[in-house]
């Protein structure tokens, strides 16, 4: 058996020089310290993305985009297709866990200041992937064409329409017309399965290439530790195997969630019905949605909602640009302001999400 594997390996090695890649990985070391645990969340995010691609392709075999087909096709997937219920539930659960893993990964990188020179581009590509993940969530939420998704999309695209000057055009572009209709569904489907995956994969490739090229970031002050005291582990196979172990645990969690808490389908969307009570966006948009509710209708001369959206846009921009304004960290100096901002952001998101959930 071993001989056959060796032969296959040699066959590939002769053609693509696999030996060099293995040697490169074997030489790569991952620092071991008290915060090493946070390194794994990038891998978990990657794993969940792979699951999304895999389950998404399977769902594509039966899903039909269209006002009169979408809901029925998901119903068919869940009741008639062998393991369709499992694939759909895993896709929905993994989507949410993916965003959660991205949040954890982002905040861990932020607090570790891993974005500092020379990893600015890695941070930027990561942030871009988070935004695309939001777009994945927003577009995918509508695809089952159920009541909640229909009205949440209506509210969501309404908010996009508030943006000054270009809001109206964005809203019409997103909806494919004045209202949320079958046209919105087909273009959201297009975004979800073609445009977003294409862009995401490209950025992900750059992100992973940079991580491989630059190696794992070391914690602040790590360079002051004596070389003898610096602990490391080989990227291959140790770190990869640990990653794999976590992936298996995540897979188990996903299976349990899919069986015990199958993702509901709800009622088919009806454009003429009145909006049901408790229309809410997905949980990761809830803190922004709840904030917009609390903003007074008029702030100075600006419309309250416009003000809120602009504030979030500015905050997002500032957050994204942290490698460029946090000079202290790049110089290896502690920057408490960055920590305070990060803590505030975490608390803000948690508190407003809980309020949004409860109200």
């Amino acid at each position, binding site marked *: 058996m071993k001989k056959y594997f060796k032969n296959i390996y040699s066959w590939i090695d002769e053609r693509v020089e696999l030996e060099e890649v293995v040697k490169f990985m074997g030489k790569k070391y991952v620092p071991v310290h008290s915060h090493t645990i946070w390194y794994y969340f990038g891998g978990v995010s990657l794993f969940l993305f792979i699951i999304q691609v895999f389950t998404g392709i399977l769902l594509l075999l039966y899903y039909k985009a269209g006002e009169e087909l979408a809901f029925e096709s998901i*119903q068919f997937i869940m*009741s008639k297709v062998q393991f369709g219920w499992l694939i759909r539930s895993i896709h929905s659960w993994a989507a949410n866990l993916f965003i959660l893993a991205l949040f954890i990964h982002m905040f861990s990188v932020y607090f570790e200041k891993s974005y500092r020179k020379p990893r600015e581009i890695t941070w930027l590509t990561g942030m871009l992937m988070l935004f695309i993940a939001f777009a994945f969530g927003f577009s995918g939420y509508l695809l089952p064409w159920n009541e909640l998704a229909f009205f949440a999309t209506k509210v969501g695209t309404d908010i996009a329409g508030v943006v000054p000057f270009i809001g109206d055009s964005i809203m019409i572009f997103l909806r494919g017309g004045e209202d949320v209709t079958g046209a919105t569904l087909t273009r959201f489907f297009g975004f979800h399965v073609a445009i977003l995956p294409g862009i995401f994969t490209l950025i992900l490739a750059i992100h992973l290439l940079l991580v491989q090229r630059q190696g794992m970031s070391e914690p602040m002050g790590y360079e002051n530790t004596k070389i003898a005291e610096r602990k490391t582990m080989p990227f291959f196979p*140790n770190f990869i*195997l640990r990653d794999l172990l976590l992936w*298996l*645990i995540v*897979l*188990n969690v996903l*299976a*349990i969630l899919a069986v015990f808490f199958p993702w509901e389908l709800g009622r088919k969307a009806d454009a003429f019905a009145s909006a049901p009570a408790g229309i809410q966006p997905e949980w990761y948009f809830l803190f922004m949605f709840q904030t917009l509710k609390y903003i007074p209708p008029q702030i100075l001369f600006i419309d309250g909602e416009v003000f809120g959206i602009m504030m979030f846009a500015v905050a997002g921009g500032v957050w994204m640009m942290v490698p460029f304004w946090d000079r202290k960290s790049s110089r290896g100096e502690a920057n408490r302001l960055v920590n305070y901002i990060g803590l505030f952001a975490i608390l803000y998101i948690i508190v407003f999400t809980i309020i949004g959930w409860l109200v």
Partner: protein
Amino acid sequence: MKNLFLFIFILFFSFSISFSESSDKCFECHQSLGDKQSELFVKDIHFQKGISCADCHGGNSQSEDIDEAMNKKSGYIGIPKGDAISKTCAKCHSGTKMSSKYKSALPINQLEKLETSVHGKIATSGKEHIAQCVTCHNSHGIVSVKNPASPVHPLKVVKTCTKCHADASFMKTYNPSLAIDQLEKYRTSLHGKKNIKGDVKAAECVSCHGSHEIQNAKDIRSSVYPTNLPQTCAKCHSDKDYMKEYKIPTDQYSEFSKSIHGVTLLKKKDFGAPACNDCHGNHGATPPGISSISKVCGSCHALNAELFSASPHKKAFDEKEFPECETCHGNHGVVDATDQLLGINQGSVCIKCHQENKFPKGYATAKIFRSIIDSLEKVSKEAILYVEEAEQKGMEISEAKFKLREAHQSRMEARTMIHSFNNEKFLEVTKKGFDVSEFIRLEAANAVEEFYYRRWGLGVSSLIITIVAFSLFVYIRRIERK
């Protein structure tokens, strides 16, 4: 003695002066001219009560001088026009003057009622209400409603109403969709036939629709609005004393109000259920005869009636002069047609005729029909229970759930098909019900099975993943120790 004669002369002279001064100069003059109004007015109840021309037309009725008598300064208004007519009547008919001066017991709210009635709406001229008092009561020559000469006397009122209501071009200006053949129909009804024979107790327009307060039949305040109509009919038909001479029962309303029709209409306010007129007719009200009952019931229960007419029962019922639907279901007190009516058990209507020893074939059919209907009910209920269980377990079984409607529909069809009293047809319909119930039961049972399969599947998969993960963990520990 001379003085006595003088006293008597003065007394007589002064009396004659006072008499001539209080007499109605308008009436005297118009009567001498021989005009129609004064001729009619002599018979008028108002004339008999001492009401003068000037009381309605204004002016000075004591003056012989025409210019002074008909002077506007004396309050002369001439012939009142439009709403002024009813207001003139209401001067007396809406105040205390009626009871205090004329000792009348007549109500004093007629104008108020008229103005809020359908006739109180604005006429197409836009200047006045549609009907004034004189439209129905006439102007000169008004007599008591009990007087056969009155246009609103029970024997005359139908003609009075049809002055307008049978006039197609007039009615078109107000309600083009309203029929104008009420009188023709009425004359074909029992009420109409009795009325024309001089029976003042037989219902006419006012008996059902009311008089001054009359409303559009679609208005909830109308006495002939579907939910009010049974009580309107019951005013006479439930009054034993009133109906005594007609020798018909008086329990129709109490029976109807307890019936499935009555409960649905009166309590649930479902206008799909019939009121009295839906079976008996309204203007052409007549009780359905033995041969027409299935047609009357069939106007709503069309399929049942059609199947019955083609069934062997039709001929048998006709020969024995059994009133079709009524024989099994009753009439005014018709109850909800449950499965209990079918079969050979107590409460069944079949065994009224089909006793085992007399008509064994019919007895056997009733028995089979009932057992099949019961089985269908049983499998349908089982299917519902399975669907509920699968739903409770969170399984997606919307198709089976949707099919429950089909199962229900099949049960309804089967119950309708009973009226064909045909084994083959009945079995064909019930088979559909059994098939669909079986389909639902299987789908739901599979879903429940799938639920447990998923749990087991998860358990096995989790175990495998856990073993692999644990092995990996052990392997990592091993290579890291090296």
